[in-house]
Protein backbone atom coordinates (compact mmCIF):
# COMPACT_ATOMS: atom_id res chain seq x y z
CA UNK A 1 0.00 0.00 0.00
CA UNK A 2 1.23 3.51 -0.80
CA UNK A 3 0.23 5.99 1.88
CA UNK A 4 0.19 9.64 0.93
CA UNK A 5 -0.45 12.51 3.34
CA UNK A 6 -1.88 15.77 2.01
CA UNK A 7 -0.86 18.70 4.21
CA UNK A 8 -2.18 22.22 3.67
CA UNK A 9 0.53 24.63 4.84
CA UNK A 10 -0.69 27.87 6.40
CA UNK A 11 1.56 30.88 5.98
CA UNK A 12 1.51 32.22 9.52
CA UNK A 13 1.44 28.97 11.41
CA UNK A 14 3.74 28.45 14.35
CA UNK A 15 5.31 25.06 13.50
CA UNK A 16 5.44 23.86 17.08
CA UNK A 17 1.78 24.69 17.64
CA UNK A 18 1.01 22.91 14.37
CA UNK A 19 2.81 19.78 15.45
CA UNK A 20 1.10 19.66 18.82
CA UNK A 21 -2.34 20.21 17.31
CA UNK A 22 -4.59 17.75 15.54
CA UNK A 23 -3.49 19.27 12.19
CA UNK A 24 -0.41 17.05 12.30
CA UNK A 25 -2.36 13.86 12.95
CA UNK A 26 -2.67 12.75 9.28
CA UNK A 27 1.12 12.65 9.23
CA UNK A 28 1.33 10.72 12.50
CA UNK A 29 -1.27 8.28 11.21
CA UNK A 30 0.56 7.81 7.90
CA UNK A 31 3.75 7.01 9.78
CA UNK A 32 2.11 4.49 12.06
CA UNK A 33 0.23 2.80 9.18
CA UNK A 34 3.44 2.41 7.21
CA UNK A 35 5.27 0.97 10.22
CA UNK A 36 2.46 -1.44 10.93
CA UNK A 37 1.46 -2.58 7.46
CA UNK A 38 4.48 -1.70 5.33
CA UNK A 39 4.43 0.07 1.97
CA UNK A 40 5.65 3.55 1.22
CA UNK A 41 4.83 6.93 2.70
CA UNK A 42 4.75 10.17 0.78
CA UNK A 43 4.00 13.65 2.11
CA UNK A 44 2.63 16.37 -0.13
CA UNK A 45 2.53 19.84 1.39
CA UNK A 46 0.80 22.68 -0.40
CA UNK A 47 0.21 26.32 0.41
CA UNK A 48 1.60 29.79 0.21
CA UNK A 49 4.62 29.45 2.39
CA UNK A 50 8.12 29.59 0.89
CA UNK A 51 10.15 27.16 2.97
CA UNK A 52 8.10 25.61 5.71
CA UNK A 53 9.86 24.21 8.76
CA UNK A 54 7.12 21.60 8.87
CA UNK A 55 8.44 19.84 5.77
CA UNK A 56 11.95 19.83 7.24
CA UNK A 57 10.51 18.01 10.23
CA UNK A 58 8.74 15.60 7.93
CA UNK A 59 12.15 14.80 6.44
CA UNK A 60 13.65 14.47 9.91
CA UNK A 61 10.99 11.94 10.85
CA UNK A 62 12.42 9.64 8.19
CA UNK A 63 10.13 10.34 5.24
CA UNK A 64 12.04 10.73 2.00
CA UNK A 65 9.28 11.26 -0.59
CA UNK A 66 8.39 14.87 0.21
CA UNK A 67 6.68 17.34 -2.10
CA UNK A 68 6.03 21.03 -1.72
CA UNK A 69 3.66 22.87 -4.04
CA UNK A 70 3.36 26.61 -3.64
CA UNK A 71 0.80 28.96 -5.06
CA UNK A 72 0.34 32.69 -5.10
CA UNK A 73 -3.44 32.40 -4.82
CA UNK A 74 -4.75 29.98 -2.21
CA UNK A 75 -8.33 30.92 -3.00
CA UNK A 76 -8.16 29.31 -6.44
CA UNK A 77 -7.97 25.57 -5.67
CA UNK A 78 -8.23 24.29 -9.26
CA UNK A 79 -4.65 25.08 -10.38
CA UNK A 80 -3.36 23.39 -7.22
CA UNK A 81 -5.35 20.27 -8.04
CA UNK A 82 -4.03 20.33 -11.62
CA UNK A 83 -0.51 20.39 -10.22
CA UNK A 84 -1.23 17.55 -7.80
CA UNK A 85 -2.68 15.22 -10.43
CA UNK A 86 0.62 14.03 -11.98
CA UNK A 87 1.85 12.96 -8.52
CA UNK A 88 -1.06 10.54 -8.17
CA UNK A 89 -1.65 9.31 -11.67
CA UNK A 90 -1.04 5.58 -12.15
CA UNK A 91 -0.79 5.00 -8.43
CA UNK A 92 -3.71 2.67 -7.98
CA UNK A 93 -2.84 1.18 -4.63
CA UNK A 94 -2.60 4.57 -2.95
CA UNK A 95 -4.53 5.84 0.04
CA UNK A 96 -4.48 9.60 0.56
CA UNK A 97 -4.88 10.78 4.15
CA UNK A 98 -6.13 14.35 4.66
CA UNK A 99 -7.70 16.21 7.56
CA UNK A 100 -11.40 17.02 7.44
CA UNK A 101 -11.45 20.76 7.06
CA UNK A 102 -12.90 23.58 5.01
CA UNK A 103 -10.26 22.93 2.37
CA UNK A 104 -11.77 21.61 -0.89
CA UNK A 105 -8.48 20.46 -2.44
CA UNK A 106 -8.85 16.80 -1.28
CA UNK A 107 -12.42 16.70 -2.64
CA UNK A 108 -11.45 18.19 -6.01
CA UNK A 109 -8.47 15.86 -6.20
CA UNK A 110 -10.59 12.75 -5.51
CA UNK A 111 -13.13 13.89 -8.10
CA UNK A 112 -10.46 14.57 -10.74
CA UNK A 113 -8.71 11.25 -10.12
CA UNK A 114 -12.03 9.39 -10.05
CA UNK A 115 -11.20 7.95 -6.61
CA UNK A 116 -13.69 7.28 -3.83
CA UNK A 117 -13.67 9.77 -0.96
CA UNK A 118 -14.61 8.67 2.55
CA UNK A 119 -15.47 11.44 5.03
CA UNK A 120 -15.57 11.38 8.86
CA UNK A 121 -12.91 8.69 9.30
CA UNK A 122 -12.13 7.80 12.94
CA UNK A 123 -9.87 4.76 12.61
CA UNK A 124 -7.92 3.09 9.78
CA UNK A 125 -6.38 -0.36 9.47
CA UNK A 126 -5.57 -2.85 6.72
CA UNK A 127 -7.27 -6.25 6.41
CA UNK A 128 -5.67 -9.52 5.32
CA UNK A 129 -6.75 -9.05 1.72
CA UNK A 130 -5.05 -5.62 1.40
CA UNK A 131 -8.44 -3.95 1.79
CA UNK A 132 -8.65 -0.86 3.94
CA UNK A 133 -10.85 -1.03 7.05
CA UNK A 134 -12.31 2.25 8.19
CA UNK A 135 -14.44 3.28 11.15
CA UNK A 136 -16.65 6.16 10.14
CA UNK A 137 -18.66 8.57 12.32
CA UNK A 138 -22.19 9.18 11.16
CA UNK A 139 -25.01 11.51 12.02
CA UNK A 140 -26.71 11.05 15.35
CA UNK A 141 -23.70 9.42 17.03
CA UNK A 142 -23.84 6.28 14.86
CA UNK A 143 -20.64 4.68 13.58
CA UNK A 144 -20.01 2.24 10.76
CA UNK A 145 -17.18 -0.14 9.93
CA UNK A 146 -16.43 -0.09 6.21
CA UNK A 147 -14.21 -2.23 4.00
CA UNK A 148 -12.85 -0.56 0.86
CA UNK A 149 -10.29 -1.15 -1.81
CA UNK A 150 -7.72 1.48 -2.83
CA UNK A 151 -7.28 3.97 -4.43
CA UNK A 152 -9.01 6.13 -1.85
CA UNK A 153 -9.05 9.54 -0.25
CA UNK A 154 -9.77 9.36 3.49
CA UNK A 155 -10.87 12.54 5.27
CA UNK A 156 -9.86 12.15 8.89
CA UNK A 157 -11.83 13.42 11.85
CA UNK A 158 -8.63 14.53 13.58
CA UNK A 159 -10.17 14.51 17.06
CA UNK A 160 -9.78 10.74 16.97
CA UNK A 161 -6.07 10.64 16.08
CA UNK A 162 -2.88 11.45 17.94
CA UNK A 163 -0.80 14.42 16.82
CA UNK A 164 2.75 13.91 15.58
CA UNK A 165 5.50 13.47 18.13
CA UNK A 166 9.10 14.40 17.35
CA UNK A 167 11.84 14.58 19.95
CA UNK A 168 13.63 17.89 20.48
CA UNK A 169 16.72 16.24 19.00
CA UNK A 170 14.88 15.23 15.84
CA UNK A 171 13.55 18.76 15.47
CA UNK A 172 16.93 20.39 15.99
CA UNK A 173 18.61 17.99 13.60
CA UNK A 174 16.00 18.83 10.97
CA UNK A 175 17.23 22.41 10.85
CA UNK A 176 20.83 21.49 10.09
CA UNK A 177 20.29 18.44 7.90
CA UNK A 178 20.19 18.85 4.14
CA UNK A 179 16.71 18.00 2.99
CA UNK A 180 15.63 17.10 -0.52
CA UNK A 181 12.13 18.26 -1.29
CA UNK A 182 10.41 18.14 -4.67
CA UNK A 183 9.28 21.72 -5.16
CA UNK A 184 6.78 23.01 -7.67
CA UNK A 185 5.44 26.52 -8.12
CA UNK A 186 1.83 26.42 -9.27
CA UNK A 187 0.97 28.88 -11.98
CA UNK A 188 -2.36 30.65 -11.44
CA UNK A 189 -4.37 32.69 -13.86
CA UNK A 190 -4.87 36.08 -12.30
CA UNK A 191 -8.49 36.56 -11.40
CA UNK A 192 -9.86 39.87 -10.27
CA UNK A 193 -10.09 39.72 -6.50
CA UNK A 194 -10.63 42.64 -4.16
CA UNK A 195 -9.75 42.40 -0.49
CA UNK A 196 -11.96 44.34 1.88
CA UNK A 197 -12.51 44.63 5.63
CA UNK A 198 -14.87 42.04 7.06
CA UNK A 199 -18.57 42.79 6.76
CA UNK A 200 -21.45 40.84 8.20
CA UNK A 201 -23.76 39.47 5.55
CA UNK A 202 -27.16 40.94 4.91
CA UNK A 203 -30.08 38.84 6.03
CA UNK A 204 -33.45 40.10 4.92
CA UNK A 205 -36.00 41.27 7.42
CA UNK A 206 -39.19 39.24 7.76
CA UNK A 207 -41.31 41.51 5.63
CA UNK A 208 -38.88 41.98 2.76
CA UNK A 209 -38.09 38.28 2.43
CA UNK A 210 -41.79 37.44 2.28
CA UNK A 211 -42.30 40.15 -0.34
CA UNK A 212 -39.45 38.82 -2.44
CA UNK A 213 -40.80 35.28 -2.49
CA UNK A 214 -44.29 36.54 -3.24
CA UNK A 215 -43.23 38.58 -6.25
CA UNK A 216 -41.11 35.72 -7.56
CA UNK A 217 -43.81 33.14 -7.42
CA UNK A 218 -47.11 34.92 -6.98
CA UNK A 219 -47.61 32.51 -4.12
CA UNK A 220 -49.74 33.03 -1.09
CA UNK A 221 -47.60 32.88 1.98
CA UNK A 222 -48.93 32.12 5.40
CA UNK A 223 -47.30 31.54 8.73
CA UNK A 224 -48.59 28.57 10.69
CA UNK A 225 -49.88 29.40 14.14
CA UNK A 226 -47.66 28.84 17.17
CA UNK A 227 -48.41 25.56 18.94
CA UNK A 228 -50.25 26.12 22.20
CA UNK A 229 -47.75 26.38 24.99
CA UNK A 230 -50.27 25.87 27.79
CA UNK A 231 -49.21 22.72 29.57
CA UNK A 232 -51.41 19.79 30.33
CA UNK A 233 -50.89 19.23 34.05
CA UNK A 234 -50.63 15.95 35.92
CA UNK A 235 -50.54 15.64 39.71
CA UNK A 236 -50.86 12.35 41.53
CA UNK A 237 -49.05 9.13 42.25
CA UNK A 238 -45.96 8.02 40.34
CA UNK A 239 -48.05 5.38 38.55
CA UNK A 240 -50.52 8.00 37.36
CA UNK A 241 -47.70 10.27 36.26
CA UNK A 242 -46.03 7.48 34.27
CA UNK A 243 -49.30 6.49 32.62
CA UNK A 244 -49.97 10.12 31.65
CA UNK A 245 -46.49 10.52 30.16
CA UNK A 246 -46.80 7.31 28.14
CA UNK A 247 -50.21 8.35 26.81
CA UNK A 248 -48.88 11.77 25.90
CA UNK A 249 -45.84 10.36 24.07
CA UNK A 250 -48.03 7.97 22.09
CA UNK A 251 -50.46 10.78 21.26
CA UNK A 252 -47.62 12.94 19.96
CA UNK A 253 -46.28 10.09 17.86
CA UNK A 254 -43.03 10.10 19.82
CA UNK A 255 -43.08 6.41 20.77
Amino acid at each position, binding site marked *: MNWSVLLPLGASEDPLAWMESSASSPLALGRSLMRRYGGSLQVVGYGKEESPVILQWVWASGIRDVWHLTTADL*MAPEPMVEALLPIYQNRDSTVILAASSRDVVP*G*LLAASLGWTLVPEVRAVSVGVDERVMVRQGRRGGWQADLRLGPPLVLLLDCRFFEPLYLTVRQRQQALVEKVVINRRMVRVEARERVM*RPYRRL*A*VKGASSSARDARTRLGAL*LQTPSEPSKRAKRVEGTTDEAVRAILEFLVQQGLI
Partner: protein
Amino acid sequence: MNHGRLWAFTLVDDAADRRWENAVGRFAETEWGAKFIDEVTLIMIGAVPPQERVSSVLYGMGSAILVKTAPFDAIGDTIQAVFRALADYPLPSVSVFLVDDDWRVAMLGAFWSTWLKACVAANVSSFRVMPDGSIQVVQDVEVGVTQAVTTYRPDEKVTILWDIPHVSTPPRVRRQGDGLRLDAITVPDVNREVEVIRLIEPTPQELPLEDAERVVAGGRGIEGPDGFAILEELATCLRAGLGASRVAVDQGWISYAHQVGQSGKRIHARLYMAFGISGAPQHLDGMKDCETIVAINRDPKAPIFDVAHLAVVADAREVARQLTLALRARESEEHVMTV
Protein backbone atom coordinates in the same frame (compact mmCIF):
# COMPACT_ATOMS: atom_id res chain seq x y z
CA MET B 1 -32.31 40.97 -18.15
CA ASN B 2 -32.29 37.44 -16.73
CA HIS B 3 -29.54 34.85 -16.88
CA GLY B 4 -30.41 31.20 -16.78
CA ARG B 5 -30.74 28.77 -13.98
CA LEU B 6 -29.58 28.38 -10.44
CA TRP B 7 -29.57 25.02 -8.67
CA ALA B 8 -29.39 24.87 -4.87
CA PHE B 9 -28.16 21.50 -3.55
CA THR B 10 -28.93 19.92 -0.21
CA LEU B 11 -28.38 16.44 1.29
CA VAL B 12 -30.84 14.37 3.33
CA ASP B 13 -29.61 11.40 5.38
CA ASP B 14 -32.80 9.85 6.69
CA ALA B 15 -36.44 10.55 7.41
CA ALA B 16 -35.55 12.33 10.65
CA ASP B 17 -33.00 14.58 8.98
CA ARG B 18 -34.64 17.96 8.62
CA ARG B 19 -31.54 20.11 8.30
CA TRP B 20 -32.50 20.80 4.70
CA GLU B 21 -35.46 22.89 5.91
CA ASN B 22 -33.12 25.19 7.79
CA ALA B 23 -30.75 25.31 4.80
CA VAL B 24 -33.48 26.21 2.32
CA GLY B 25 -35.03 28.71 4.75
CA ARG B 26 -31.73 30.50 5.27
CA PHE B 27 -31.12 30.60 1.54
CA ALA B 28 -34.51 32.26 0.98
CA GLU B 29 -33.75 34.86 3.65
CA THR B 30 -30.48 35.95 2.08
CA GLU B 31 -30.11 38.70 -0.50
CA TRP B 32 -28.43 37.07 -3.47
CA GLY B 33 -30.01 38.70 -6.51
CA ALA B 34 -32.79 36.21 -7.30
CA LYS B 35 -34.43 38.64 -9.68
CA PHE B 36 -31.63 38.24 -12.22
CA ILE B 37 -32.08 34.45 -12.47
CA ASP B 38 -34.81 32.82 -14.58
CA GLU B 39 -35.37 29.76 -12.52
CA VAL B 40 -34.32 28.51 -9.09
CA THR B 41 -34.40 24.75 -8.56
CA LEU B 42 -33.82 22.83 -5.35
CA ILE B 43 -31.83 19.62 -5.83
CA MET B 44 -32.34 17.33 -2.88
CA ILE B 45 -30.21 14.18 -2.76
CA GLY B 46 -30.46 11.16 -0.45
CA ALA B 47 -33.37 9.88 1.62
CA VAL B 48 -35.69 12.51 0.20
CA PRO B 49 -38.88 13.30 2.15
CA PRO B 50 -42.36 12.91 0.64
CA GLN B 51 -43.18 15.43 -2.09
CA GLU B 52 -45.96 17.10 -0.06
CA ARG B 53 -43.47 17.86 2.72
CA VAL B 54 -41.04 19.46 0.26
CA SER B 55 -43.63 21.54 -1.55
CA SER B 56 -44.89 22.95 1.75
CA VAL B 57 -41.51 24.44 2.66
CA LEU B 58 -40.00 25.48 -0.62
CA TYR B 59 -39.46 29.16 0.20
CA GLY B 60 -39.34 30.83 -3.16
CA MET B 61 -37.97 28.06 -5.36
CA GLY B 62 -39.57 27.51 -8.74
CA SER B 63 -39.04 23.76 -8.97
CA ALA B 64 -37.39 20.86 -7.22
CA ILE B 65 -35.72 17.63 -8.29
CA LEU B 66 -35.75 14.98 -5.59
CA VAL B 67 -33.03 12.40 -6.19
CA LYS B 68 -33.68 9.36 -4.05
CA THR B 69 -30.51 7.38 -3.46
CA ALA B 70 -28.40 5.63 -0.82
CA PRO B 71 -26.79 7.80 1.88
CA PHE B 72 -23.38 9.25 1.06
CA ASP B 73 -21.11 7.42 3.42
CA ALA B 74 -18.54 7.37 0.65
CA ILE B 75 -18.53 9.69 -2.33
CA GLY B 76 -17.79 7.65 -5.43
CA ASP B 77 -19.62 5.88 -8.24
CA THR B 78 -23.13 6.52 -6.89
CA ILE B 79 -22.69 10.28 -6.93
CA GLN B 80 -21.40 10.09 -10.50
CA ALA B 81 -24.60 8.18 -11.39
CA VAL B 82 -26.64 10.93 -9.69
CA PHE B 83 -24.88 13.57 -11.78
CA ARG B 84 -25.55 11.62 -14.97
CA ALA B 85 -29.25 11.43 -14.04
CA LEU B 86 -29.32 15.19 -13.43
CA ALA B 87 -27.78 15.77 -16.85
CA ASP B 88 -31.20 14.94 -18.35
CA TYR B 89 -32.28 18.39 -17.18
CA PRO B 90 -31.05 21.71 -18.59
CA LEU B 91 -27.92 22.32 -16.50
CA PRO B 92 -27.48 25.45 -14.35
CA SER B 93 -25.06 28.31 -14.77
CA VAL B 94 -24.86 28.77 -11.01
CA SER B 95 -24.80 25.86 -8.55
CA VAL B 96 -25.05 26.63 -4.84
CA PHE B 97 -24.28 23.97 -2.23
CA LEU B 98 -25.94 24.79 1.08
CA VAL B 99 -23.12 23.87 3.47
CA ASP B 100 -23.73 23.42 7.19
CA ASP B 101 -21.36 21.67 9.59
CA ASP B 102 -21.50 18.57 7.41
CA TRP B 103 -18.34 18.46 5.23
CA ARG B 104 -19.94 16.01 2.83
CA VAL B 105 -22.02 18.78 1.26
CA ALA B 106 -18.86 20.74 0.41
CA MET B 107 -17.16 17.60 -0.89
CA LEU B 108 -20.20 16.87 -3.05
CA GLY B 109 -19.85 20.40 -4.39
CA ALA B 110 -16.22 19.67 -5.25
CA PHE B 111 -17.27 16.54 -7.17
CA TRP B 112 -20.07 18.43 -8.95
CA SER B 113 -17.84 21.30 -10.04
CA THR B 114 -15.27 18.84 -11.39
CA TRP B 115 -17.99 16.96 -13.26
CA LEU B 116 -19.53 20.16 -14.63
CA LYS B 117 -16.11 21.71 -15.37
CA ALA B 118 -17.15 24.76 -13.39
CA CYS B 119 -15.12 27.15 -11.26
CA VAL B 120 -15.44 26.44 -7.56
CA ALA B 121 -15.67 29.08 -4.84
CA ALA B 122 -15.35 27.59 -1.35
CA ASN B 123 -16.12 29.08 2.07
CA VAL B 124 -18.45 31.63 0.58
CA SER B 125 -20.21 33.83 3.10
CA SER B 126 -22.35 35.66 0.54
CA PHE B 127 -22.77 36.02 -3.20
CA ARG B 128 -24.72 38.13 -5.65
CA VAL B 129 -25.92 37.62 -9.18
CA MET B 130 -25.36 41.03 -10.81
CA PRO B 131 -27.63 42.63 -13.44
CA ASP B 132 -25.06 41.86 -16.19
CA GLY B 133 -25.03 38.16 -15.23
CA SER B 134 -21.63 38.22 -13.56
CA ILE B 135 -21.41 36.71 -10.10
CA GLN B 136 -19.79 38.37 -7.14
CA VAL B 137 -18.65 36.03 -4.44
CA VAL B 138 -17.53 37.04 -0.94
CA GLN B 139 -15.18 34.63 0.82
CA ASP B 140 -13.84 34.95 4.34
CA VAL B 141 -10.05 35.17 4.28
CA GLU B 142 -9.83 35.73 8.01
CA VAL B 143 -13.13 35.66 9.86
CA GLY B 144 -13.82 39.03 11.44
CA VAL B 145 -10.87 40.68 9.66
CA THR B 146 -10.69 40.34 5.87
CA GLN B 147 -12.91 39.17 3.05
CA ALA B 148 -12.12 38.68 -0.62
CA VAL B 149 -14.60 39.68 -3.31
CA THR B 150 -14.18 37.72 -6.55
CA THR B 151 -16.09 38.37 -9.75
CA TYR B 152 -16.92 35.57 -12.19
CA ARG B 153 -17.82 36.45 -15.77
CA PRO B 154 -21.37 35.81 -17.08
CA ASP B 155 -20.06 33.06 -19.39
CA GLU B 156 -18.39 31.11 -16.56
CA LYS B 157 -20.15 28.26 -14.77
CA VAL B 158 -19.73 28.65 -11.03
CA THR B 159 -20.17 26.26 -8.12
CA ILE B 160 -20.59 28.13 -4.86
CA LEU B 161 -20.04 26.36 -1.54
CA TRP B 162 -22.14 28.68 0.57
CA ASP B 163 -21.75 28.53 4.36
CA ILE B 164 -25.22 28.73 5.84
CA PRO B 165 -25.13 31.57 8.38
CA HIS B 166 -25.54 30.55 12.00
CA VAL B 167 -28.55 32.49 13.19
CA SER B 168 -30.12 31.58 16.51
CA THR B 169 -33.74 32.02 15.43
CA PRO B 170 -35.21 29.25 13.26
CA PRO B 171 -36.13 30.28 9.72
CA ARG B 172 -39.72 31.35 9.27
CA VAL B 173 -41.82 28.55 7.85
CA ARG B 174 -43.79 29.83 4.90
CA ARG B 175 -46.15 27.78 2.88
CA GLN B 176 -46.31 28.04 -0.81
CA GLY B 177 -49.27 27.89 -3.11
CA ASP B 178 -49.51 26.20 -6.48
CA GLY B 179 -47.15 26.52 -9.39
CA LEU B 180 -44.26 24.48 -8.09
CA ARG B 181 -42.84 21.76 -10.33
CA LEU B 182 -41.58 18.66 -8.53
CA ASP B 183 -39.70 15.83 -10.17
CA ALA B 184 -38.61 12.67 -8.38
CA ILE B 185 -35.95 10.29 -9.67
CA THR B 186 -34.33 7.25 -8.11
CA VAL B 187 -30.67 6.38 -8.57
CA PRO B 188 -29.57 2.92 -7.37
CA ASP B 189 -26.52 2.53 -5.14
CA VAL B 190 -23.59 1.54 -7.34
CA ASN B 191 -20.82 2.12 -4.80
CA ARG B 192 -19.59 -1.45 -5.21
CA GLU B 193 -16.22 -0.62 -3.79
CA VAL B 194 -17.66 0.14 -0.34
CA GLU B 195 -18.80 -2.66 1.92
CA VAL B 196 -20.56 -1.82 5.21
CA ILE B 197 -19.47 -4.48 7.68
CA ARG B 198 -21.41 -3.31 10.70
CA LEU B 199 -23.28 -0.38 12.16
CA ILE B 200 -22.61 0.67 15.74
CA GLU B 201 -25.49 2.23 17.63
CA PRO B 202 -24.72 5.28 19.80
CA THR B 203 -25.06 5.11 23.56
CA PRO B 204 -26.86 8.06 25.21
CA GLN B 205 -23.45 9.24 26.47
CA GLU B 206 -22.15 9.45 22.91
CA LEU B 207 -25.17 10.79 21.08
CA PRO B 208 -24.39 14.42 20.23
CA LEU B 209 -27.14 16.58 21.73
CA GLU B 210 -27.40 18.75 18.62
CA ASP B 211 -28.25 15.66 16.55
CA ALA B 212 -30.51 13.90 19.03
CA GLU B 213 -34.16 13.71 18.09
CA ARG B 214 -35.03 13.16 21.77
CA VAL B 215 -33.23 14.40 24.86
CA VAL B 216 -33.65 13.26 28.47
CA ALA B 217 -32.16 15.86 30.82
CA GLY B 218 -31.56 16.09 34.55
CA GLY B 219 -30.96 18.91 37.02
CA ARG B 220 -30.35 19.29 40.74
CA GLY B 221 -33.60 17.43 41.40
CA ILE B 222 -32.12 14.20 40.05
CA GLU B 223 -29.93 14.26 43.16
CA GLY B 224 -26.59 12.87 42.08
CA PRO B 225 -24.64 10.76 39.58
CA ASP B 226 -26.77 7.73 40.41
CA GLY B 227 -29.76 9.80 39.29
CA PHE B 228 -28.04 10.22 35.92
CA ALA B 229 -27.53 6.44 35.77
CA ILE B 230 -31.33 6.14 36.01
CA LEU B 231 -31.77 8.77 33.29
CA GLU B 232 -29.24 7.00 31.09
CA GLU B 233 -31.33 3.84 31.19
CA LEU B 234 -34.41 5.83 30.25
CA ALA B 235 -32.47 7.54 27.45
CA THR B 236 -31.36 4.15 26.12
CA CYS B 237 -35.01 3.00 25.98
CA LEU B 238 -36.03 6.16 24.15
CA ARG B 239 -32.90 6.27 21.94
CA ALA B 240 -32.36 9.72 23.37
CA GLY B 241 -29.35 11.88 24.17
CA LEU B 242 -28.52 12.91 27.75
CA GLY B 243 -28.81 16.56 28.73
CA ALA B 244 -28.16 18.39 31.99
CA SER B 245 -28.53 21.72 33.74
CA ARG B 246 -25.49 23.70 34.73
CA VAL B 247 -25.95 22.83 38.37
CA ALA B 248 -25.72 19.12 37.53
CA VAL B 249 -22.57 19.74 35.49
CA ASP B 250 -21.01 21.96 38.15
CA GLN B 251 -21.63 19.25 40.75
CA GLY B 252 -19.62 16.87 38.56
CA TRP B 253 -22.54 14.48 38.04
CA ILE B 254 -22.11 14.57 34.27
CA SER B 255 -19.66 16.16 31.82
CA TYR B 256 -19.95 19.63 30.29
CA ALA B 257 -20.64 18.17 26.82
CA HIS B 258 -24.16 17.46 28.11
CA GLN B 259 -24.96 20.97 29.40
CA VAL B 260 -27.98 22.59 27.82
CA GLY B 261 -28.48 26.34 27.99
CA GLN B 262 -26.99 29.73 27.44
CA SER B 263 -23.48 28.58 28.29
CA GLY B 264 -24.02 25.04 27.01
CA LYS B 265 -25.77 23.71 23.92
CA ARG B 266 -28.85 25.06 22.19
CA ILE B 267 -30.93 22.21 20.90
CA HIS B 268 -33.98 21.71 18.70
CA ALA B 269 -35.01 18.16 19.54
CA ARG B 270 -38.46 16.76 18.84
CA LEU B 271 -38.79 15.72 22.50
CA TYR B 272 -37.17 17.24 25.59
CA MET B 273 -37.80 15.65 28.98
CA ALA B 274 -36.62 17.73 31.94
CA PHE B 275 -36.24 15.84 35.23
CA GLY B 276 -35.74 18.01 38.33
CA ILE B 277 -34.81 21.14 36.41
CA SER B 278 -36.26 24.42 37.69
CA GLY B 279 -36.26 26.24 34.34
CA ALA B 280 -33.94 29.19 34.90
CA PRO B 281 -33.89 31.60 31.92
CA GLN B 282 -30.32 30.51 31.09
CA HIS B 283 -31.47 26.89 30.84
CA LEU B 284 -34.63 27.73 28.88
CA ASP B 285 -32.43 29.55 26.40
CA GLY B 286 -31.01 26.23 25.24
CA MET B 287 -34.15 24.08 25.04
CA LYS B 288 -37.22 26.26 24.54
CA ASP B 289 -37.19 25.61 20.77
CA CYS B 290 -37.70 21.88 21.24
CA GLU B 291 -40.97 20.76 19.67
CA THR B 292 -42.41 18.93 22.66
CA ILE B 293 -41.35 19.54 26.25
CA VAL B 294 -42.24 17.26 29.15
CA ALA B 295 -41.21 18.52 32.61
CA ILE B 296 -41.14 16.52 35.82
CA ASN B 297 -40.68 18.58 38.97
CA ARG B 298 -41.77 18.35 42.61
CA ASP B 299 -42.57 22.05 42.79
CA PRO B 300 -45.96 22.87 41.14
CA LYS B 301 -44.75 26.44 40.59
CA ALA B 302 -41.47 25.57 38.85
CA PRO B 303 -40.91 27.99 35.91
CA ILE B 304 -40.08 25.08 33.59
CA PHE B 305 -43.82 24.34 33.54
CA ASP B 306 -44.40 27.64 31.69
CA VAL B 307 -42.74 26.26 28.57
CA ALA B 308 -43.77 22.62 29.00
CA HIS B 309 -46.45 20.85 26.96
CA LEU B 310 -46.90 18.26 29.69
CA ALA B 311 -46.27 19.29 33.31
CA VAL B 312 -45.86 16.44 35.77
CA VAL B 313 -45.71 17.27 39.46
CA ALA B 314 -43.88 14.27 40.91
CA ASP B 315 -40.56 12.92 42.10
CA ALA B 316 -38.06 12.97 39.20
CA ARG B 317 -36.10 9.82 40.07
CA GLU B 318 -39.19 7.75 40.78
CA VAL B 319 -40.87 8.78 37.53
CA ALA B 320 -37.70 8.13 35.50
CA ARG B 321 -37.30 4.66 37.04
CA GLN B 322 -40.95 3.65 36.57
CA LEU B 323 -41.13 5.12 33.07
CA THR B 324 -38.10 3.06 32.02
CA LEU B 325 -39.77 -0.11 33.32
CA ALA B 326 -43.02 0.77 31.55
CA LEU B 327 -41.24 1.44 28.26
CA ARG B 328 -39.34 -1.84 28.50
CA ALA B 329 -42.56 -3.73 29.22
CA ARG B 330 -44.19 -2.04 26.26
CA GLU B 331 -41.26 -2.89 24.00
CA SER B 332 -41.28 -6.58 24.93
CA GLU B 333 -45.09 -6.68 24.44
CA GLU B 334 -44.63 -5.27 20.95
CA HIS B 335 -41.88 -7.77 20.31
CA VAL B 336 -44.17 -10.66 21.33
CA MET B 337 -46.89 -9.33 19.05
CA THR B 338 -44.61 -9.14 16.04
CA VAL B 339 -43.01 -12.57 16.53
